[in-house]
Every structure is written in structure tokens, then in C-alpha cells.
């Protein structure tokens, strides 16, 4: 297959990967990976706390380095690659976080919201656009909306000034046909470009990313060795290899991105992302990958099966930020267990 179509790659190894290490990436590791990604020609390198700019907190996990240190370090070590950030309105405010981030040299701002809440992005997208930087809208946990409703939310972001829409499979729940269907609809109905961000809970991150590319997506996310929340993201170096084989152009040097992935494995990752049994359940139940650690901890505390927690959370349509519900679910399960015993 020869396509010659260009795919823009955005690499959130140093942002989504921060979830996998409790947001403990150091400035040395940020510098090291930025140099390698830059050398490989990765177009966009996303850096920051796992939940994005301004999210370091006791509740979500305190980052090892501040946004300022992380972004300035990244900027100093990127010459060709653009520096990207993930911004969730509420965690990040315009005055406290976005304005300084622009001063620190950010090129690409990806403003993200839960898939049904695009409205909260209006001010952040409009502001970013007014500052002359590239701005994308991201719809997280997108499997929770039908394609038609997802399009409505994407249209809102387009009207606010987003230059592209990335829909995110935050729970690693999609099958390729579902991805293809959504991309085709968005590409047909929007005048801006469409991107896709996968998680690998069901082992389909590469397949889903390819489905997105085939359906017309212009941007794909990928992390070195898939380093990201839960079961990890699309494995970047594999994605590049497969895209190259299929005739897509990414402007990324294959050997150098393979080297960058090796370097990341040796120097950055404490543990390689794997599809654990819990990840599979998380993907099946459609629960955010980032819930894995609190679910495991609380399951142990209450002596309940974490898989039962996941499926119950899935039934309740729980989204990121509602971690407190895990406790409630575990407690309910314990009580029901007690009743069953009686």
C-alpha cells in the first residue's frame, strides 16, 4: 500500500508517561529524552504532569519538578521539535499557568476536556489562539459518547478556534471499527484536522491508530515503548515503523526513534508498561487507565476484587477526577459481599 500521506506525530512520553511514574520524571530525564526525540525528528514533544499544566497537587500527585522547570528544560533541549503541553481547564488557569507557559517557549497547546464538556475549553482555546500558538482541542474518554454527540463537542472546539481535534481513547476501550467510524465522521464534518490518542488496554493501540490514519486522521499520538498511563499508549517506534511500511510519511528517522525508545527504556522507565489483567478489565469496562493504581490500592484495603471495582465503575460512567467514587464502590461491594455470605 502506497499512500504518501503525511501524519503528524505528537509524542506524550514525557506527559502521559509521567502517570506511570507517579509524575516523578526529573529534569535530567526530560532533557535526555527531549534530545533523543528532537534528534529523531519527532514533530511535537509533549511535556508535563500526567494531568497536564498546573495539575501537580496532593490530590492528583505532586510532580517531581515544577511546570516551569520541566518546560524550560524541555525547551532548552528541543531545537527542531515543537514543545507541546496538555491543558485541562480548571487544573490550568490562563493567568497562573498558560501565560507563563507561553513565556517558557511552548509551541503547541492541547486543551482537553471530558468528551461531553467541550464548553469549558472556550476561554483557554480562544486565549491560546489569540497568542499565535498552535492550539488543538482534545476530547478525553471519547468512547463514552456516540459518534454524533462526539461531533457536536468537536464542533464547539472548532468554533472556539481549535486548529484540530484529538479524540482520546483514555480507557483503551475502542475496537478499530469504532475508531474508523468516528474519524470518518469528524473528517467529513469538520474543516479542521483530526487526531487520535490511543491506550493499549486491549492490545489494540497500534491497530486503532492505523484505523484512524486510514480513515483520514492527520495526527497520531505515540509514546516511546508505549510509556503512559495504565497499559500504556501506542508504542511510538512501532507506530513509526508500521506507518513507514504502509507508505505514510512522518518525517521521523526510524533508526533514531528506535534509539530514543531504547534510551527511554534504560533511563526513564521504572517499569515497562504491560497489559496486566487489570488493564484488560479497565479497557473492557471503559474506565480511565489512570485509575489503575488507586483501584488496586483500594481493592487491597477493602479486600475486594479490583475487577469487580472496574466493572462497577464502568457501569457508573465514572470519569477522571471522580477517584473518590472508587472508595464508595469498594465499600458497596464489601457490603454486598457480606449480604451474599449471609
Amino acid at each position, binding site marked *: 500500500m502506497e499512500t504518501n500521506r503525511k501524519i503528524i506525530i505528537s509524542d506524550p512520553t514525557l506527559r502521559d508517561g509521567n502517570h506511570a511514574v507517579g509524575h516523578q520524571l526529573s529534569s535530567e530525564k526530560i532533557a535526555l529524552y527531549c534530545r533523543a526525540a528532537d534528534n529523531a525528528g519527532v514533530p511535537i514533544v509533549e511535556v508535563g504532569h500526567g494531568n497536564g499544566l498546573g495539575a501537580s497537587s496532593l490530590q492528583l500527585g505532586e510532580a517531581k519538578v515544577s511546570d516551569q522547570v520541566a518546560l524550560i528544560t524541555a525547551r532548552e533541549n528541543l531545537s527542531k521539535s515543537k514543545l507541546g503541553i496538555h491543558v485541562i481547564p480548571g487544573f490550568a488557569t490562563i493567568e497562573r499557568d498558560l501565560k507563563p507557559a507561553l513565556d517558557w517557549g511552548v509551541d503547541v497547546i492541547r486543551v482537553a476536556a471530558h468528551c461531553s464538556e467541550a464548553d469549558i475549553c472556550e476561554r483557554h482555546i*480562544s486565549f491560546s489562539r489569540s497568542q*499565535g500558538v*498552535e492550539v488543538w482541542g482534545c476530547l478525553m474518554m471519547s468512547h463514552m459518547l456516540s459518534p454524533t454527540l462526539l461531533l457536536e463537542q468537536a464542533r464547539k472546539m472548532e468554533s472556539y*478556534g481549535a*486548529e484540530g481535534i484529538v479524540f482520546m481513547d483514555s480507557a483503551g476501550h475502542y475496537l478499530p471499527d469504532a475508531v474508523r467510524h468516528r474519524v470518518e465522521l469528524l473528517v467529513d464534518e469538520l474543516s479542521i484536522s483530526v487526531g487520535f490518542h490511543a491506550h493499549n488496554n486491549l492490545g489494540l493501540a497500534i491497530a486503532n491508530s492505523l484505523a484512524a490514519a486510514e480513515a483520514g486522521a492527520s495526527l497520531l499520538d505515540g509514546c516511546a515503548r508505549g510509556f503512559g498511563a495504565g497499559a500504556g499508549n501506542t508504542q511510538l517506534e512501532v507506530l513509526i515503523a508500521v506507518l513507514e511500511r504502509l507508505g505514510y510519511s512522518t518525517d521521523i528517522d526510524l533508526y533514531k526513534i528506535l534509539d530514543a525508545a531504547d534510551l527511554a527504556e534504560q533511563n526513564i522507565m521504572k517499569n515497562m508498561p504491560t497489559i496486566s489483567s487489570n488493564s484488560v478489565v479497565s479497557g473492557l469496562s471503559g474506565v480511565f487507565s489512570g485509575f489503575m493504581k488507586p483501584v488496586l490500592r483500594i481493592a487491597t484495603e477493602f479486600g475486594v476484587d479490583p475487577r469487580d471495582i472496574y466493572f462497577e465503575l464502568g457501569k457508573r460512567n465514572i470519569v477522571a477526577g471522580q477517584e473518590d467514587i472508587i472508595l464508595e464502590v469498594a465499600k458497596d461491594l464489601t457490603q454486598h459481599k457480606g449480604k451474599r455470605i449471609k
Partner: protein
Amino acid sequence: MKRHEMTRNDCLRILKSGRDKLLDPLRQTELVVIGGTGFVGTWIAEMVASLNDEYQFGIKLHLVSRSTEKFSSQAPHLAAREDIQLIKSDVRQLGKIPMNTDWVIHAAANPDVRTHASNPLDTASVIVEGTMSVVRTAERLGRLKKLLYLSSGLVCSSQDSSLSENAKGAPELGASFIYPNAKRFAETVCSAARVQSRIPVLVARPFSFIGPYQSLDTPWAQTTFLADALHGRPIRLLGDGQLKRSYLYGSDAAYWFLRILTTGPSGDVVNVGSQEDISLQDLAEIVAQNFEPSPEILLNTSPRNQGRTTLLIPDITHVHDEYGLSVLTPLNEAVKLTAQWHQMQKNCEKDIFSG
């Protein structure tokens, strides 16, 4: 030169060569512009001020708006005039319209696509309930000569290279298309008011405008390019820059609206815009030429879907043939004047901040 001297010159340039005489029906009359403090309303106020000062028209102008304070700060030279009265009111609850009103222009609607997306119900309410409110008010105006409703060029669609007033295509359904659908329904309300209440009403369909008083905060191509250039940044085009648009300058638009209002027959529908189409890349180049140093133009900063573009070039044969109106400010000049005005405004802000 000050900013208001520049806009005055723009109006006088349009009114010269005897064109002022074609507005004679406005002499010694009262004009109400509902939604009168936006881009169109401000330019109509500029034109009325010019007619009164330079040609002794004696028009009394009432600008009805929810945002009169904003108007007073943005155009103090107009707000302070004795022949211009500001009436703070929501279009849906009009209660203070002078009973001696001769002419009404209904321009109330927020054209900002961000508001349409976030508040579609409010968008529809202002347009539909607002138009109902305007026609109910018009029924009570014994001296009313004409009501001009400013609809939108988006109410129709066509596969042709330009949109005529008779194009049959309708906007898509759905919340994302609330603005053109509400405007379309409001046109129908105007038609019903003409049939049922004998209100002399006609419709103008504005397309894209350019000029002073247009906020650079709006996410349109011309405003984004000007904002980029004004801040010394490269002008970024998302696609290949071949998408075409056309723009009518503010003082031209104001003159057209007044001419259509005073001379158009009830029931007429008239496109208001320029037929001089231009690619966005060429527009960016014209904008860049008006700044020193000239900003870089970056193409394809984000890939753009080429298949999904709206046609926004009006066919203006009708307004040309029936009203004798044509574009008096060529696009190059329009961009130059707009760029100069915004540079003057920026310098003025700098002076304020530097004390």
C-alpha cells in the same frame, strides 16, 4: 490623524460625488438601530454623524443595545453627540423605542461563532424572540416608513460560485447550525409581519466585512491575520491558503444599508457584501504588506480538511442593478485602512499604559 478623523474621512469618501443626495429620504427623520453598538451599528452611527455634520441632514439616531457602556468607551466621539441617543435594552424586551421613529434597522444578534457553540439556545432566543419583539414594536410605530432586518449570508447555500438571493439550499440541521437556522426563521417572521400586520419590511443578508471597530479577538481569518501582524508574529494559515472569501469595508456597508432601507421596496431581499473574491493566502499577503517589518506567512501550519468549506461569496447583481450600489473601497484599500486604524489604536493603548 486621530482614529475618528480617519473613520469620518472613510464616510465622506463614500458620500462624495453626489451620493449623499441619494440618502435624502433620511433628512429630518428618526432612525432606530436595534443591536446598534456592534460593527454595523457603529458604522451607521459614523455615517449618520457625517451626514448631519457635513450635509445638515438633521437625523436623530437611537442606538438600542445591551452594551451601551462598551460603546461609550469604544466610540466616545459618537456616544457624546446630541443627535445620537443610547438606549440600553435587550431586543427581547423593547420598551423604550420613540414613537416618532421613521426607520428601523434590526441588527441585533451576536455573530461570534463561539457564543453560538456554547450558548445555542440564547443565540436562537436573541434572534427569533428578538425579531418577534421588533415586529411587535414596529406594529405600534405610526410613522414607520421601513424596517430593515439584517439577516445573514449563511441562510442559503448553493453549489454555484457565488450565492444569489434566490439560492434554495438551506443550512444543515442541528445545534451547530443554530445561527443560520434562527436567522432563516427570523426572515420568515419578517415575511409574516409584512403579510399579517402590513409592516413594510425588507431583508439584507450581510456577508463578510472588514474595517475599524471589528474586534481582533474574533476567530475569523481577516481578524486573526491582522492580530498576528499587529503583534509582530508570523501569519499562520491552517491549510494551503486557497480557500476564498470576500470582504466589504465598514463605511461601504453602512452606506449600502441606509440606501437599501430608504429606497428598497418592502419584501425585497438583498445581499450585502463584496463579490471581489480573494484566497486567504493573498489576503494574508495584503495584510503583511501593511506592516513594518512585514510578517512571515506560514502555510499549512495545521492540515485542513479541504472537502468541508463553506462558500461565502455573494452574488451582488441585484443590489447593483436595482440599487445602483457597488463596492467603493477596493479590498487592498480596505485592508490598508483597517491595519492603520488598529495600529493607531494600539499606539493609543501604549500611550495610556505608559502614562
